[in-house]
């Protein structure tokens, strides 16, 4: 099977469990199992090629310009890890089916699990380091979801957050390291990087890259001092812990160290950093693990310790160390996954994981006992079990490793760690399964169904088989070792044997086992000493660190963003002015190339009105109604200016927009205070005035300068004018640009407009459903209400005029392609017509006559425009290519049919919908506030008879 499918299957499969959720828990687990099995089988189909030593690759150009390509490769190492991920994944899925309770959302769980699985498989199969980084971050994110799966538990949320913070920070460092590495090697492809050992190690940036990449690996693989997140991640459901902490997540860092081993290892820097970190982690993890009373915590720290062991082996930089590391990865994955699952079984059956409350389970849970005993003894390093073999290889390697010029340091510390390791393994067996049967278990423990014990049992079979017959695993481990080593070193010839003769490692093994037994016997005493020694608590330090960072960020951000809008605006204006001044003073300005045009009295009069209105607005802005009128004059003069300067389309648009804007502001002013009080000091006003005048002068100078100069290069407008009729079929160049040349722009703009309207609608809804609703209902209008809110003259007139407006709108729409007009303007004109109905006849009257909701109109508009664009795909043209034809239907004159008109219809509908939805939302607020409207459109209607003719005025006159 193609490598693409192996990686893609879990991701696409992640869609299924959620869908199968309602089909039952077995179906949900079944589909997840099937997906994983398919990927697993797909992986196995590549086994012959891997065994033959071939490199299976799959390549897809993604962003070649960035060096980011979707390239996958499968060698021994990748195959080994993918096998662990998918194989143990299968067991975990089967186990989780029986582990999760009915209250847990299984679809969600398996979706996360498959996402995580896909990301892990992606890491181990990536050939491109940028792609690897993408998958690396995906594992951080999906493990966050998995660890925090029990959202209701605070420790789950905290644990997930801590894991994400630590591994995410490491991931960030690693991005830096990988980018440096890619720069040095000149390629982001692993296959190229792995060939460039000498080049990379000679580069001055080697150490920086090494440290950054190792930070990524150490955080992911919980190496000291980043080990603390792993025990807190134990708040996850046990299947997650078993999966993440035995075979996958924490092994990702190990995998990367192994992957990069040929290029990064072998230098003194690598040796000192990696070996020291591994050794420290190993000793620390083993020591803490012994004193943990929670089964999963004990296993978590034991995992930390074993990860340290593997890291230490990789750090030695020798071929034998790499082989031992590979072998231990396999062994650790088997016994640790089995142990985690067994811990879950005990928790599931006895309802506690506290070792102090357990004991005597040997007779009550015999199957579990056998599984745990075999797996633990393997972990302790007892012969005939697989843990013994790799642990002895580790001790063997340790005796040859000289760190800091001290030959005894590594062997002694490795032995100390082994002693503690053996001790906690013995404690696990002794304190949980031996001893008297108690009568105070939280629940009566008994062996679970086969669904729960079979997955760990299968792993334990492997533990024993490898332990008894190591030669079965030897070829495979050596095959993996070949790809770890690359061409940096030769595979060691040492055979995997149980009996190597009386070598130092054997003595050390015996010391470890005996020491472990001694520690177990003296455990009570040691525990008292441990309890009374003060220890730094990693979580407290971490929390304090986070709190400090948050405080710093708050200080910085709140100092800058203090919520004073005027301050932001002032900073922005001053910054823009300064940037403009800089550009002005450093740039060059050519001489004037255009002659100033003379201005007649009419333009001067218009200019005078505009300037007077603007100045009036500034000085009289405290009277808000007056300022509304003044800004109306400014807008009107701008529209007139557009007419004067040959822009009829703009003038029509500006004019119609002006009308709806003023209505909108009037609606808002209905609620807002009518006057602005004097608040700012004179000094402040002078300061603001200074900035304003400077800004005004600057824009004036800029505009004046370029108005008198021609464009430096020929504007593309020439093209538009030349092709407007030939290519677009319309003589109104502005409209052709809108619906044809730059149709995609327009398409985006109507979407923005629609979103703005929906936003207003949503805000209104929020206001009306929140505490504001009560305020609005109790609000007393601060102005006198009109006695006759719906005057008869206006009602009659607007109704008579409505068809005329619609016809004008239709006409403007149709002629738009050739004469000033088009969808935008027609939409605005029709909106004004509809708004007039609201104003004259009232909200209720108009609403009941409204057949289509405005959201629908917006949607229809965007859809029509979009579908018109898509239509061009069917004739093999790019999106929004337009076409037109001239047809003649007697008795009409020849006219044009263009697909652009259909697009313009979409624009029209979107504009009508957006404008109306905004105004309607505002008036809905107003409606809440005022008294219920009368049921009749006219308050005073002479044609209506009877005493109930006008109930409303009396109510309204009361105000």
């Amino acid at each position, binding site marked *: 099977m193609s490598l693409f499918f192996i990686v893609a299957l879990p991701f696409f499969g992640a869609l299924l469990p959620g869908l199968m959720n309602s089909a039952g828990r077995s179906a949900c687990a079944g589909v997840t199992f099937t997906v994983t099995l398919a990927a697993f089988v797909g992986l196995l189909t590549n086994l012959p090629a891997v065994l033959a030593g071939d490199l299976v690759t799959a390549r897809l150009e993604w962003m070649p310009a960035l060096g980011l390509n979707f390239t996958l490769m499968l060698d021994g190492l990748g195959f080994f890890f993918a096998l662990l991920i998918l194989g143990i994944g299968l067991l975990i899925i089967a186990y989780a089916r029986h582990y999760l309770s009915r209250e847990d959302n299984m679809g969600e769980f398996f979706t996360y699990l498959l996402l995580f699985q896909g990301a892990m498989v992606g890491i181990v199969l990536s050939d491109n380091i940028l792609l690897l980084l993408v998958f690396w971050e995906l594992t951080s994110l999906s493990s966050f979801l998995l660890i925090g799966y029990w959202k209701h538990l605070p420790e789950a949320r905290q644990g997930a957050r801590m894991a994400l913070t630590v591994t995410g920070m490491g991931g960030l460092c690693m991005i830096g390291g990988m980018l440096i590495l890619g720069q040095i090697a000149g390629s982001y492809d692993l296959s190229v990087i792995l060939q460039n050992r000498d080049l990379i190690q000679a580069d001055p940036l080697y150490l920086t890259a090494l440290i950054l990449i190792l930070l990524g690996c150490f955080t992911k693989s919980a190496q000291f001092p980043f080990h603390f997140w792993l025990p807190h991640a134990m708040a996850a459901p046990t299947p997650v812990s078993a999966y993440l902490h035995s075979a996958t997540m924490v092994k990702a860092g190990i995998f990367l160290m192994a992957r990069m081993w040929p290029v990064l290892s072998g230098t003194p820097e690598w040796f000192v950093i990696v070996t020291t970190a591994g050794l420290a982690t190993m000793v620390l993890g083993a020591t803490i693990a012994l004193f943990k009373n929670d089964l999963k915590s004990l296993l978590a720290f034991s995992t930390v310790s074993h990860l340290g062991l593997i890291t230490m082996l990789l750090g030695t930089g020798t071929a034998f160390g790499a082989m031992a590391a590979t072998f231990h990865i396999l062994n650790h994955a088997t016994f640790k996954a089995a142990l985690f699952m067994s811990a879950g079984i005990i928790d599931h059956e006895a309802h506690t994981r506290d070792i102090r409350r357990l004991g005597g389970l040997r007779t009550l849970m015999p199957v579990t006992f056998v599984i745990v005993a075999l797996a633990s003894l393997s972990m302790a390093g007892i012969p005939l079990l697989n843990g013994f073999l790799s642990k002895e290889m580790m001790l063997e390697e340790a005796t040859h490793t000289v760190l800091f010029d001290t030959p005894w340091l590594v062997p002694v510390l490795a032995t100390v760690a082994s002693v503690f390791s053996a001790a906690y393994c013995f404690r696990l067996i002794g304190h949980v399964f031996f001893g008297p049967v108690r009568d105070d278990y939280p629940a009566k423990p008994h062996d679970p169904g086969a669904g729960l014990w079979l997955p760990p049992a299968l792993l334990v079979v492997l533990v024993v088989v490898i332990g008894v017959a190591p030669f079965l695993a030897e070829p495979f481990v050596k095959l993996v070792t070949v790809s770890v080593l690359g061409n940096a070193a030769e595979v060691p010839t040492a055979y995997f044997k149980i009996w190597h003769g009386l070598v130092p490692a054997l003595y050390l093994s015996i010391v470890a086992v005996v020491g472990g037994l001694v520690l177990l016997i003296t455990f009570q005493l040691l525990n008292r000493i441990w309890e009374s020694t003060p220890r730094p608590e990693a979580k407290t330090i971490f929390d304090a660190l986070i709190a400090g960072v948050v405080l710093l960020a708050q200080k910085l951000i709140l100092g800058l963003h203090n919520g004073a809008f005027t301050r932001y605006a002032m900073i922005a204006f001053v910054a823009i002015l300064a940037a403009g001044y800089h550009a002005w003073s450093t740039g060059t300005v050519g001489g004037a190339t255009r002659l100033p045009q003379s201005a007649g009295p009419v333009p001067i009069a218009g200019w005078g009105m505009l300037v007077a209105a*603007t100045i009036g607005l500034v000085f009289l*802005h405290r009277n808000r109604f007056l300022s509304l009128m003044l800004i109306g004059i400014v807008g009107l003069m701008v529209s007139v200016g557009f007419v004067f*300067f040959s822009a009829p389309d703009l003038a029509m648009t500006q004019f119609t927009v002006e009308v709806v804007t003023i209505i909108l502001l009037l609606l808002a002013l209905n609620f807002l205070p009518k006057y602005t009080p004097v608040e700012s000091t004179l000094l402040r006003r002078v300061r603001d005035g200074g900035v304003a005048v400077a*800004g005004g002068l600057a824009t004036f100078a800029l505009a004046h300068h370029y108005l008198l100069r021609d464009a430096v290069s020929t504007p593309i407008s020439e093209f538009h004018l030349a092709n407007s009729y030939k290519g677009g079929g319309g003589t*109104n160049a502005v409209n052709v640009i809108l619906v044809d040349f730059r149709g995609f722009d327009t398409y985006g*703009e109507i979407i923005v407009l629609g979103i703005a309207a929906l936003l207003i609608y949503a805000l209104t809804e929020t*206001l009306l459903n929140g505490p504001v609703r009560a305020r609005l209902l109790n609000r007393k209008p601060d102005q006198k209400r009109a006695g006759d809110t719906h005057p008869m003259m206006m009602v009659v007139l607007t109704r008579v005029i409505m068809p005329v407006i619609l016809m004008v709108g239709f006409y403007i729409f149709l002629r738009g392609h050739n*004469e000033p007009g088009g969808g935008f303007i027609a939409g605005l004109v029709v909106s004004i017509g509809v708004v007039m109905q609201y104003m004259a006849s009232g909200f209720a009257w108009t609403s009941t006559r409204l057949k289509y909701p405005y959201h629908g109109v917006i949607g229809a508009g965007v859809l029509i425009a979009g579908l018109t664009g898509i239509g061009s795909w069917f004739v093999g043209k790019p999106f929004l290519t337009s076409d037109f034809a001239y047809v003649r239907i007697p008795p009409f004159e020849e006219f044009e049919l263009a697909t652009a008109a259909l697009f313009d219809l979409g624009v029209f509908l979107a504009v009508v919908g*957006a404008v109306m939805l905004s105004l309607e939302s505002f008036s809905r607020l107003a409606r809440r506030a005022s008294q219920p409207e009368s049921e009749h459109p006219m308050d005073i209607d002479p044609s209506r008879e009877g005493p109930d003719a006008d109930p409303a005025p009396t109510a309204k006159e009361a105000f």
Partner: protein
Amino acid sequence: MEMLVASAIGVMTAGGIYLVLRLRTFPVIMGISLLTYAVNVFLFTSGRLTTGAPPILRDGVAIYADPLPQALVLTAIVISFGMTAVVVMIGLGAFLGSDDDHVDDPTDENEDRAGDAS
């Protein structure tokens, strides 16, 4: 003529900036509207000033106003209506929720101003 248009842009910008720096929502919205006019006219004039030559193709006419800035400004006008509406809605919502139409968040010094806002 260029002088008139450029100075109109300048005056509208100055007025807009001054009003945007005011303390209450309504003048700020007025200021934004003024700035919108100024910016739209500014963009429009990037096609330079042409009188009596609308970009409607006619036989025998060679000089037309630049259609591209016109098309861009046309959508800008409509969009700015949408944006103004959103800003007005936000300002209105804030006022209805707190009886306070200041644009700046209350600080320690003016904590008690909400009462005398209306």
